């Protein structure tokens, strides 16, 4: 630090120290008698995860024919899949999630996705987040429409995105906040902090533009929560979150859940699933990170998992056959999972179409036999108790779709 950086922020010797943006303990005491709020955590695997290597149809010879160098071996072999139900096996890097599956808290939906034919990541992600496949109209996401139709809430924390930008999935009329890291939710302490907050409020308080609205939300978030500082957070039950993007994001979501600030939905995303080459190594690392972080999240929440459901999404799957460089190209159907106390787990859901040439979508990809909105609608209605599916997914006839039954009645 040089001389100038120690300069006081206030004149006349009022305060000698710097501004102190540092960590603060969570200020608001947890509401002792609040009704338990059920919550949904959505984790988006951006880049199109290879569902066939995540949840492996090891019972099918065609799978091994299509993927001579990247297939996951059958259970019992070296680096083999972990058997789930006698037909499907989990990628071995996801072994930390096997206890959740065995406990009936984790379920997979295979051949799941969007019926829209796009193989563009960016269109695919937008469509999936908006919940309106094929439509480029509209600017709000289905997660936000859920909040709109779930009834009013006073909490600025009802929708939280662990993201430096507001993701499309949570964009819309309902209050939500996007924050890359909870440690950002601070504006300094003491007299200087108060002066800063007052000044910012004065500068932004009456603006009707986007920065004005966002800063007002920021001040509210700071006022209610103080600083939710991940460095101060102690996971329960011996949970250890890996120091990875997935671990760092899920530990913060667990912290918001435990802070009891009215969080109803949370969103986070992981990059890197676009495994066009050398997939064996790359996918293993990513799936291990995802599984370790998710398993730590489950351990940490403990009994609170009864009120929490975590689901994964990805814009589409990958080609059934491996490509010419030990990877897979953009495909169609993939696999998704749900973890939580209300999940009727320990099972693989969805109609399995098979991998024969005639069964593949456009002759190359795993088809979609379960619309991802069916999966989500069951979670929204069954877990969150919001039956307004037609408002959340406007072009989707939930009642006409076959049901999965993935949430316990």
């Amino acid at each position, binding site marked *: *630090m040089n001389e*100038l*950086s120690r*300069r006081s*922020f*206030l*004149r006349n010797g009022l305060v000698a120290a*710097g*501004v102190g943006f540092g960590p603060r303990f969570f200020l608001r005491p947890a509401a002792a008698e609040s009704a338990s709020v059920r919550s949904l955590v959505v984790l988006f695997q*951006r880049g199109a995860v290879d569902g066939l290597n995540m949840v492996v149809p090891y019972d099918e010879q065609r799978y091994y024919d299509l993927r*001579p*160098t990247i297939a996951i071996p059958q259970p019992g072999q070296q680096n083999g899949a972990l058997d789930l139900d006698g037909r499907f096996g989990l990628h071995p890097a996801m072994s930390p999630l096997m206890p959740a599956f065995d406990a009936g808290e984790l379920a997979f939906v295979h051949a799941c996705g969007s019926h829209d034919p796009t*193989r*563009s*990541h*960016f269109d695919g992600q937008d469509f999936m987040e908006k919940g309106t496949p094929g439509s480029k109209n509209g600017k709000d996401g289905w997660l936000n429409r859920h909040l709109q139709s779930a009834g009013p809430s006073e909490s600025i924390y009802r929708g939280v*995105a662990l993201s*430096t*930008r*507001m993701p499309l999935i949570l*964009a819309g009329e309902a209050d939500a*906040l*996007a*924050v*890359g890291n909870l440690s*950002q*939710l601070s*504006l300094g302490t003491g007299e*200087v902090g108060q*002066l*800063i907050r*007052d*000044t*910012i*409020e*004065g*500068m*932004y*308080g009456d*603006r009707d*533009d*986007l*920065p*004005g609205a*966002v800063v007002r939300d*920021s001040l509210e*978030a*700071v006022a209610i929560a103080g600083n939710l500082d991940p460095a101060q957070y102690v996971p329960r039950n011996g949970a250890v979150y890996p120091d990875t993007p997935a671990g760092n994001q899920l530990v913060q979501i667990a912290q918001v859940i435990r802070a009891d600030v009215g969080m109803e939905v949370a969103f986070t995303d992981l*990059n*890197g699933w*676009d495994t*066009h*080459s050398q997939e064996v190594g790359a996918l293993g690392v990513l799936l291990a990170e995802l599984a370790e972080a998710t398993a730590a999240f489950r351990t940490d929440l403990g009994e609170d998992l009864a009120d929490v459901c975590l689901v994964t999404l990805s814009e589409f799957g990958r080609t059934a056959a*491996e*490509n*010419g*460089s*030990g*990877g897979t*190209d953009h495909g169609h159907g993939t696999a998704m999972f749900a973890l939580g106390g209300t999940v009727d787990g320990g099972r693989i859901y969805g109609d399995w179409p098979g991998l024969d040439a005639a069964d593949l979508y456009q002759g190359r990809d795993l088809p979609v036999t379960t619309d991802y909105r069916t999966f989500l609608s069951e979670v929204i209605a069954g877990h969150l108790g919001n039956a307004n599916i037609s408002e959340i997914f406007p072009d989707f006839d939930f009642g006409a779709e076959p049901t999965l039954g993935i949430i316990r009645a």
Partner: protein
Amino acid sequence: MRRVVALVLLVTAVILVPEWHLATAHGAEIRGRRSREAGRRSGARPTAVLRTVSRNCDPASAPDRISPSVDPATIHLLNRAAFGPTPHLVWEVECLGRDAWVDQQLFPNLITDPQLTQRLSIYPTLVMTTAQLIENYPQPMPGEEVDRTKTPAQVLAELRSSVVLRAVHSRKQLEEVLVDFWFNHFNVFAGDGPARWATTSYLRDVIRPNVFGHFEDLVLATAESPSMLYYLDNYLNVRAGSRGRNSGLNENYARELLELHTVGVDGGYDQDDIIEVAKAFTGWTIRDPRANDSGFVYNQFFHDDSADSVMGHEIATSGVQQGREIIAFLSAHPATADFIATKLVSRLVADDPPAHLVRRVREVFTQTHGDLRAVVEIILKSEEFYDPVHRLAKVKSPLEIVASSMRAIDAEVQLGLGAARLVGILGQPLLLASPPTGWEEDADAVTSVGGMLTRFEAAFRIATNDIPGVFVDFDRWSFIDAGSLGADRILVDVLQDRAGADTRRAMRRAEREGASSALLGAMALGCPEFQLQ
């Protein structure tokens, strides 16, 4: 009538008429690809008629503060075509005239900037070839004790440092803005594998020399760059069976070439087109740069020559020419003109780009065969560009807020890494966007609760000299700490007359309550008007 373009180098004003102005002035006379290539062979510099005129632009008369009565149009131009105003630059533009300054900026090779060269000289990697970088900054063996300044991480750190340093201090401001734009358009991720050595050359030799060139050349340069070949896997894209039993096509580059680089996602192609394009680019691969200057090599053995049409265009060539033919076809496609015009106008004018201007830019793009200098000129001299509704109507990106903050308070960036890291903390780590879209820059993408709070923190860190390698001189505001009125003065220095009544009132109140000049400076950088451009 010939249009004249003024180029002023300090006291001497030089007027030049570039070759392409002559062509576009005669509306019907549209130069074709052939004449453009002939022109290129005769040398890369524009044909120019030079004459000197005297102007009262004595640098000694440059003030050290921006006058509050400066024309708001000048500030607007410098917010968009530069990384924000500085007192000297405002003086230069007011003296030259805005259009003449733009003309000067359109020919960066004619602008000398020895001070920047001096500043960048502390980063030796910036001028090295990829081969030299691999040689001098090798990957350490696991467990090996190494000098950290001799690793690939150092190469990337120097490159990232140079990006901020240039944005803050370069005289070729428009070039820096466009390098940022085009790197992002042809995004690569600089942080893994060979990219850590190759991105220096990608930015310097592939992107920078082409930002005022022809679009097709830019696409071709990226297609042949080891950076892009690696990032989008085309180095692995080969004829089925040619590299072993399971080898074959890789569609990654082909898809993004169409979707992100040229015609856009709605450009009218389908999966069959992707496969045809992928076939055409088989054999475009990487050789060890130490064995080959550029690192690019076309290997006929791996090439699949069976592609016969793309988006209705019959492929007439074979071998390596197929990829080039497709790039030429895509670059001339109307959907590309539309896609690029829309994206450039969004960047330089408004998130919701005015349709009239997009249409004109698209026409110029088409008529000039993708002359990016002509396209940028049309935008920056248009009525729409200067329409007051667009003033302070775009939210600054992380790089823009950091660079413009430092320019506004005359910060001296001696080492760029601290500032580069600050850009990352604000959400868009320089050269490290992992998806091929690059960083999004519309208001929704750069405005979030966490993001705005982080901007405030960044403003305080900048104003308290808490960014390593960056130095802010508070002497000019020291009178404020002595008790005289200062909030208004600081707002004038940072924002001229653009601060609204609420900001003024809040700042004056903070001053009454004892805020120091540093705190007031931070508040000025954190105020709503400064987040906008």
